[in-house]
């Protein structure tokens, strides 16, 4: 924050000598707004949670002697008589990437002090997120009701498929849902002009970090669970 008189940006060096300087100064290490640093540290801990889920999924998939259900087939949709593999998952991926783009633009317009654009772009991001959760609900329903997938077994193959799937996508979906609420809240505050009064749009960037992380996790889930 600006009231921190530890060192003005003028005396800060870049690169390796800056790294040494930051860690040896016996003072403030991260020359970033505290909210941003804390969000990064939260995301780091979340990285570990998702990594552990994905690693345990890897482990059960290695150890099972029963063939793993083919995700390409399990998540295929038949549309207008065409059998398209992974269709819904592909749409969900594109929706999440679109939302990441609108969020990045919202952060950018925030620093340009374009309040209207920020509200619209964050609203669009939240709507994309909500539609993602909706599609996930559809996917879960289809899997549970039509395909008979349960956490303890399924008709297609290895019993661990259901437990891994519900755990990993469920936890991710929870993050998306929380993100939609978080973004809506920040968008309302932007719309009210809270950040124009404080002349500080960092809250938008911090919310953006969270949202990009949700997209980042999906990149890994998409690669390891659906494509592998």
């Amino acid at each position: 924050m600006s009231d921190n008189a530890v060192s003005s940006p003028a005396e800060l060096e870049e690169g390796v000598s800056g790294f040494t300087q930051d860690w040896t100064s016996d003072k403030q290490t991260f020359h970033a707004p505290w909210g941003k640093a804390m969000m990064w540290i939260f995301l780091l801990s979340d990285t570990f949670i998702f990594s552990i889920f994905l690693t345990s999924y890897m482990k059960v998939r290695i150890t099972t002697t029963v063939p793993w259900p083919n995700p390409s087939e399990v998540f295929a949709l038949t549309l207008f008589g065409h059998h398209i593999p992974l269709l819904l998952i592909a749409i969900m991926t594109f929706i999440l990437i679109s939302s990441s783009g609108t969020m990045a633009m919202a952060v950018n317009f925030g620093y340009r002090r374009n309040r209207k654009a920020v509200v619209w772009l964050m609203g669009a991001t939240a709507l994309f997120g909500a539609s993602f959760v909706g599609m996930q609900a559809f996917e879960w329903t289809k899997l549970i009701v039509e395909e008979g997938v349960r956490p303890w077994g399924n008709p297609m193959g290895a019993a661990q498929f259901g437990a891994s799937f519900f755990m990993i996508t469920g936890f991710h979906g929870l993050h998306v849902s929380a993100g939609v609420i978080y973004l809506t809240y920040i968008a309302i505050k932007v719309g009210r002009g809270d950040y124009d009064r404080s002349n500080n749009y960092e809250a938008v960037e911090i919310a953006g970090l969270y949202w990009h992380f949700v997209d980042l996790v999906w990149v890994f889930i998409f690669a390891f669970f659906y494509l592998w």
Partner: protein
Amino acid sequence: MSEAEGQQHPIKIYLWIWFLLFVLSTLSYMVDYIGYQGMLRWSLILVFMFLKAGFIVAIFMHMTWERMSLACAILTPPLVILVLIGLMVVEGEYTFGSRLSFFSS
């Protein structure tokens, strides 16, 4: 770079990365659609995955423009996960082997 201005960069960069993310996602979907198998499939999936993750963290999350102390504090700890993955692969192969020798007949 001045922290007072926040992370302000040309919109062009964001649009480019956005576009690239769409292209990379399409490519990784095509891997499944075309139906590549084996090593080719796995390496393509990993390449596209790491490129996408890298672009998101570096540009969308502004890590390129953050100071090195923050970047190192956030980006190095996840590397220990590689140790866990390595251990679990070894352990997993062993479990798989034991299950084959003792539980299948």
